């Protein structure tokens, strides 16, 4: 178990960590303003990946157009979800909210299975992204680095927005205390819509990154990454953008290292890793690793 090996594994895990980070940021923002586990967030992620696949393979358009259209499709999906599923049940109990989002998630996934079948479709990765480099014994793929840098830049910009702009301050206000924020003249509806737009756009980018990295998309692809994303959000302290992003990386890298360090007979247990971490964290420090922005009862 040399240092090179460990470094190599960490590098390999960077893109997975980035995707989980992007998903976690979306989860944490939506949970922050609505108090809702948006179970359908994984499906918004899947819709982004599917849109990019179609734009790339059917229209033959360049990647940046695919990314923009994927973001548009996911944002649209997020807005429809917010308007027609979550807004009517807003203010009901936790369980009602959760059942609604679970139903939305299963409904969207089944709709895609109904239309496109449940099998994977190939995702056409452009050739200029497939380059590899060697640094000594360590192999670095361009894609891995690009996804990581892109995610890091997005997260930093987003956390600056949340920290400094009026919109960001309003968002934090609504997630801390909705009633007081409304009393201060903030329209909580438009803040919630804005949150859904940002969260869904990030999910779309994660979806495109997933397609680029793993080369295929399928309707049920959003389930496990979605849950891992939420776990990362819990880990990072709900409402804390940077915390969520860092936890996303920790989970992604941790998953890969978990498999790398254990004998290969245990590789099937990889999904257990995230749950193990979740339980340990929730028992020791239920508010997550980092400071939260939510008022805890």
């Amino acid at each position, binding site marked *: 178990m040399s240092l090179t090996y460990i470094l190599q594994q960490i590098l390999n895990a960077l893109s997975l960590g980035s995707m989980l980070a992007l998903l976690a940021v979306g989860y944490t923002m939506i*949970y922050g303003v609505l108090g809702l586990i948006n179970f359908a967030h994984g499906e918004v992620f899947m819709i982004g990946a599917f849109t990019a696949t179609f734009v790339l393979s059917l229209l033959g358009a360049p990647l940046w157009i695919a990314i923009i259209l994927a973001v548009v499709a996911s944002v649209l999906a997020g807005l429809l979800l917010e308007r027609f599923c979550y807004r009517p049940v807003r203010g009901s109990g936790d369980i009602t909210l959760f059942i609604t989002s679970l139903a939305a998630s299963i*409904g969207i996934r089944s709709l895609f*299975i109904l239309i496109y079948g*449940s099998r994977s479709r190939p995702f056409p990765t452009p050739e200029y992204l497939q380059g590899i480099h060697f640094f000594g014994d360590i192999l670095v793929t361009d894609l891995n680095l690009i996804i990581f840098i892109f995610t890091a830049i997005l997260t930093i910009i987003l956390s600056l927005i949340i920290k400094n702009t009026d919109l960001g301050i309003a968002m934090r206000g609504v997630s801390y205390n909705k009633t007081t924020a409304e009393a201060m003249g903030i329209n909580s509806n438009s803040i919630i819509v804005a949150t859904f737009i940002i969260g869904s756009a990030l999910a779309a980018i994660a979806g495109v990154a997933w397609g680029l990295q793993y080369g295929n998309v399928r309707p049920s692809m959003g389930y496990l990454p979605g*849950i891992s994303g939420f776990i990362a959000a819990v880990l990072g302290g709900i409402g804390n953008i940077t915390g969520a992003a860092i936890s996303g990386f920790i989970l992604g890298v941790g998953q890969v290292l978990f498999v790398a360090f254990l004998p290969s007979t245990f590789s*099937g247990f990889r999904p257990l890793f995230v749950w193990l971490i979740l339980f340990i964290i929730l028992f020791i420090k239920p508010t997550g690793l980092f400071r939260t922005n939510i008022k805890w009862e």
Partner: protein
Amino acid sequence: MNTNTNTNNVNTNKSILENRKIMSIGGILVLGLILLFLENNLSGYYHRLVLLFGINVILTLSLNITNGYAGIFSLGHGGLMLAGGYATALVTLPVSFKASALNLPHWLETMQLPFLPAMLIAGITATIIGFTILLPAFRLKGHYFILGSLGINVIMINIAENVRAITNGATGLRGAPPYTNIWWIFAIVVILVYLMWTLMTSKYGRAVQAIGKDEGLAQALGVNLSKYKAFAFMFSSFFTGVGGALWTHLILTISPSSFDLLVVFQIVMMMVVGGVASITGSILGAAIITAMLEILQPIQEGMVLFGFKLPQMFGLSQVLLALFLILIMIYKPDGLMGEKEFSLKHLRFLSGNNRE
């Protein structure tokens, strides 16, 4: 028949209607006669449908104990069904299969039990798993508990896929003996309904319901939260495991994907549609959703309608069920029955003798 005689009948029977004991015994006798009739007169397909309905009633009722009455919303019941199903399969499968496909300790490999002890073992296994894994999860609240319980589901499926020596991996266990029949299923339904009915009006049940209504208030009134939550959860786990066992001996195979999130989702739907915290509601919900699934099944697999060949549409029933559930959540979040029970008193209006 004219209304006059109808009214007279009800009036003379009023004293009998009030008498619970006679009504219950009569009800069980009527149910027995209906079952005897169904068993002898239904074709294979409809017979199987009745069996599925019965199992769904058991699963929905046991889910309702935790998710409805006690207000602990668990998605982990799929994992408990899986535990029950595997437990019963392991003690009833043919010895030759176990010797060739699995790598079990000798006592388990040669074990061949009849249905009743196998079912009890399934229930006890599920209870133990529910107790050991989910009890720590009671420290979590609200959304976090839901997430944790979903984790139990994922973990159990993962274990079933990967511990090949016991579970035969993703292919699962095949060839469980076909023990399940209409009598076993509805005997357990009757026992479960009886237990729930008496327990929910006893001290234990009222404590559980108080927790479901308002946890903080219940605690302030001196209800021991962890004791009664554990009680509700173990009661629920036991019958969920039994339901999983009945299911296994009906379908005859069990694999890790037998009870995934979709199955749990369907049972949650049955519970929510029928009515949270209502026994008759759960039975009604199980009937509605079982019927909907069966009606949608042929459409899903592609059917010929008025000379047009419809294409296969896998996923259609899930889409429609999900839509249905979202509408229920928006317009009637407590389900059709809410927390009420259907009783014969509701039939009084038929006689025009509405006594409140």
